[in-house]
């Protein structure tokens, strides 16, 4: 057992967990944040993507103890029903989800992608390539790609307006 502390969605949390506890289990089972999902065992599907210290990682392929002292953000941490993140809003606007299971990872990957490339700098080919680590079985990706492009462009507009 180890004591693990982290800042999860802005709140400092800690718990004693078995060393083998995955970060995703810490998030879901210990902290009850069930917006992060598990869809495979081999780190391919990406339903579990969260941000650790500002970077997208697969929380199913990281131990909770590895995130000790880190800042972790999950889907619940980027926006709420009353105040959606632009990427969340774009997924709804463009029908970028159907069953919703892969959606948490898709949205967190998209936010990370926009952070890395800079808002407004994403084209369809890049988005499709960047989604290599996220599998969706429902949407055929068409509307996910559209949603990410729209969010990226919209965030660029927001950034410009703020200047």
């Amino acid at each position, binding site marked *: 057992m180890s004591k693990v502390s982290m800042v999860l969605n802005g709140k400092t949390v800690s718990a004693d967990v*078995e060393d083998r506890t995955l970060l995703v289990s810490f998030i879901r089972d210990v902290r009850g944040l*069930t917006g992060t999902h598990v*869809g495979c065992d081999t780190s391919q599907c990406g339903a579990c993507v969260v941000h650790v210290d500002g970077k997208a990682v697969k929380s199913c392929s990281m131990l909770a103890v590895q995130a000790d002292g880190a800042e972790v953000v999950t889907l619940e941490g980027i926006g709420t*029903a009353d105040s*959606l993140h632009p990427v969340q809003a774009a997924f709804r606007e463009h029908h970028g989800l159907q069953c919703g299971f892969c959606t948490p990872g898709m949205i967190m990957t998209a936010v990370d992608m926009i952070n890395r490339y800079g808002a407004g700098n994403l084209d369809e080919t890049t988005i499709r390539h960047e989604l290599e680590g996220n599998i969706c079985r429902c*949407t055929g*990706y068409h509307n*996910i790609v559209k949603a990410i492009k729209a969010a990226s462009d919209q965030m660029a507009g927001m950034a410009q307006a703020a200047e």
Partner: protein
Amino acid sequence: MAVEGIGARALRKEDKRFITGKGRYTDDMTMPGMGHAAFVRSPHAHAKVKGIDASAALEMPGVDAVLTGDQLVGDGIGNLICGWMIHSKDGSPMKMGGWRALEPEIVRHVGQAVAVVVADTQAQARDAADAVIVDYEELPAVIDPLAALESGAPQIHPEAEGNLIYDWEIGDEAATNAAFEKAAHVTRMEIHNNRLVPNAMEPRAALAGYDAAEEHYTLYTTSQNPHVARLVLSAFYNVAPENKLRVIAPDVGGGFGSKIYIYPEEMVCLWASKRVGRPVKWVSDRTEAFLTDAHGRDHRSEAELALDADNKILGLRVKTIANLGAYMSLFSSSVPTYLYATLLSGQYDIPAIHANVKTVYTNTTPVDAYRGAGRPEATYLLERIMETAAREVGLSPAEFRRKNFIRTFPHQTPVIMCYDAGDYDATLDAALKAADYDGFAARKAEAASRGKLRGIGLSCYIEACGIAPSAAVGSLGAGVGLWESAEVRVNPVGSIEVLTGSHSHGQGHETTFAQLISERFGLDTSAVSIVHGDTDKVQFGMGTYGSRSGAVGMSAIVKALDKVEAKAKKIAAHLMEASEGDIQIEGGELKVAGTDKKLTFTEVALAAYTAHNLPEGMEPGLKEGAFYDPTNFTFPAGTYVCEVEVDPDTGKTEVVNFVAADDFGNIINPMIVEGQVHGGITQGIGQALLENASYDENGQLLTASYMDYCMPRADDVPSYSLSTHVTACPGNPLGMKGCGEAGAIGSPPAVINAITDAIGDNSLSMPASPEKVWALYHAGVKQAAE
């Protein structure tokens, strides 16, 4: 929110919870005192279970119990069943072998469960499952369906001699043979339909609790049809009577057919929750899903198409061997028969068809319906042979199809189905135009200048949806009726709950179903809630599969709405002292035509519940239920055009353009319909290019994780070009046909036809792996040079 009626691209009401992490799936549910289950599974494809030693496991921390098949059978739990009786052509019933949720005697596929561990945590349960020692005596296994039918093959079930489940036929054999006698040209092909694994992104899961005082069970499970689950669990598996079992299918992360069936694990969780005395949760991992979720497709067929001198089709002859795996899953028998061979006429006027289907047991995971279920297999076979025949006789594949289209309706095919409406020229024209079919030669030449092989392929599909008229399917062997039920509950202050037996696991019912009510009463969609997925709330339902939620589920809602409307009008007429016939509903108000008298919908609802002033003899309340039984299948149809570029150096195929022109009848929400088509096409491209469940000769599944089973990813597919053409379906009140499966049905042959066009070899089989394409192309080049 607003009034968003039929045809509106309404954004989905359910999305806010999914995009903010507030969806509630089975694995998100907990019950106080809950334990966790882990299954002990066979590593062998075929073996005798000689003994199970759980002593070490029982000593491990947190372990409550290790339960085995002997205990399950001892407690009177029944076998899993297949609910659709098929008779062989000699009149004998299908040969169903016994299937126990935990197998005490003989395991028949890798991954079959022989015991379950219940422990405090999932990790403890898995640790202990690893410590259960099972003594197996390996038996010879047979994996290939053709080998399974050979004499001397290992016998899998004592009930099915020679592993043959049934030998079924449809159509007029003599007439078909006669058509071939007079043919000017016959095209012959061997056509395989590769085995797929459905791979809903949410793995199956169950959480079962038993209340000893009430002798009552609650089951949360990943189901497309919770009422059917309850029915089967009660009637066949003897878990509990229906009134003592509540089944809840909360948010479900995709189904594609794989969550129709009642699997061993859900049943074992229920049984174990009583035996162990605590709620039991099980969540499948992905490899368990690969080994135990019902697989799809897996047909081996020989097809022959007979043409006259004018290239009109005279007849189609098909022989198919369908692999059902180690056990007959719930609807497995119907898939390669009534959901397959009845669609072999496609969009064409074919005077004579004969199909023979043999189904066979093998030591592999059971096979059942997967998105499209039988119809993709029929479409793939027919559209491959149509394209090949056109090439053989030197006609444009588009013109050859057009020459043979059905143009008068209703049209009775030689294989049961009676098509009610359609306009196949319209969808073909739309697709050819959108794909710039005429400009293909220039694009091919341009690609050649870049060293790429460009090809174009067509597929004109038809499917039968709206499953299904109960009496008709009953006469064909179905164990259930396939109607749907609905209840429309107008609350006293005018908000509305619609309870439906359909189940949404991504289809957006909470939105489209609300649009119906919004349209009918002119109410804001936010005033409407859709309730589904809970046997304690919804009276009954047959669930969602076979693209039936629109044509059948919404038709039931329409029937209930008719009743609500009639009663509301009666009340309004009474209150406004007008004639019932003069009441019109508009913009959320009930008005007396030609006057300024009106009542709001809320006022009428309230009047119904206060019951202070109702017409003489009228019961209080405003709540109506309905059952809708369809009168016919519905027949969505369309044309898909795929254009590819093949890299001759590696054999890799890139889909460079994909056009779909569909006729789904009337459409409620075009945005949602497009989403269904996008997803379906991607699954079809996955089948054509990437996906394949591959076994070794010992029955080990070589593709049991995403490391080896290739799921389509965003960079494997293009954006799609879609259009729709409407011929309304005359068979249901909304004129809807269904759109959930079309993409997966229509796309595989379009992709393969495009690649065979690019490489000049019609023998290509699915999946068109780069190596296969590379080898065929270079063999062709070599042959041409010799």
